[in-house]
């Protein structure tokens, strides 16, 4: 079981990216995972295909999208990317639009990402996390914050 900080590399974090529309936002959010071999082009294609067919299924809470597709379409290695947008983009989700934060998820099987996904959903409920995302000048600051939160979690369990 990998921690969230094991699933996110510094190169997977992109700050204040510009995107004209939701498709461009998803493509850019997925790019680092593609470059590092976590996902294939087909995987990105599948996310966009499902989004076009069925609407913005990946927008899960206020301003947050979680681009992902079923593992079989090319999720080869566990990875989670973090992308913040310079300008929010409308995805077509009535309640949660517009989107400013994208967490691209590659989950190659049904187990390895359980711990990191649980951590991520906790962070999505944490106002300080959004502040860090908005104000970080360097991806390292975000990784550092995630590690600190993990440390706290461990202490609470101890």
């Amino acid at each position, binding site marked *: 079981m990998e921690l969230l900080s094991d699933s996110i590399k510094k190169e997977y974090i992109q700050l204040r990216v510009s995107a004209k529309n939701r498709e461009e936002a998803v493509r850019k959010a997925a790019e680092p995972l593609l470059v590092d071999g976590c996902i294939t082009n087909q995987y990105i294609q599948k996310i966009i295909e*499902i989004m076009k067919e*069925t*609407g*913005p*299924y*990946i927008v*899960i*809470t*206020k301003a947050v999208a*979680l681009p*992902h*597709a*079923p*593992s079989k379409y090319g*999720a080869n290695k566990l990875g989670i990317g973090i992308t913040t947008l310079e300008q929010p983009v409308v995805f077509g*989700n*009535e*309640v*949660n639009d517009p989107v400013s934060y994208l967490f691209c*998820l590659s*989950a190659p099987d*049904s187990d390895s*990402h*359980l711990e990191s*996904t*649980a951590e*991520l*959903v906790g962070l*999505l*409920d944490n106002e300080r996390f959004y502040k860090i995302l908005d104000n970080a000048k360097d991806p390292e600051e975000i990784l550092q914050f995630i590690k600190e939160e993990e440390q706290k979690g461990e202490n609470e369990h101890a």
Partner: protein
Amino acid sequence: MHKALVACRAGVGSSLMLKIKVNEVINANHLPITVEHSSLDAVPGFDGDLLITLTDVAEELRAKKVKQTVIGIANIVDKKEILSKLTDFLNDANETQL
């Protein structure tokens, strides 16, 4: 005890997150519901009485006239929304039994 399936299109991302949040609400309020999660492919074979999904998927499932009650959650981390929708489901289920 009611049995619920949390389903999303892929079965690996949003359904897992939603299951975590739903379980937090269930445990905090001692609701008589057990939860599993999967992709939409598992819906036809599911023998429980409640389906929990994101809003857009919920509409699709209702259109298909699945036999279970369908709850659509708009905001995954909004525990108030989750609690109120689960409570509505439990109240309706009790009325049916009486």
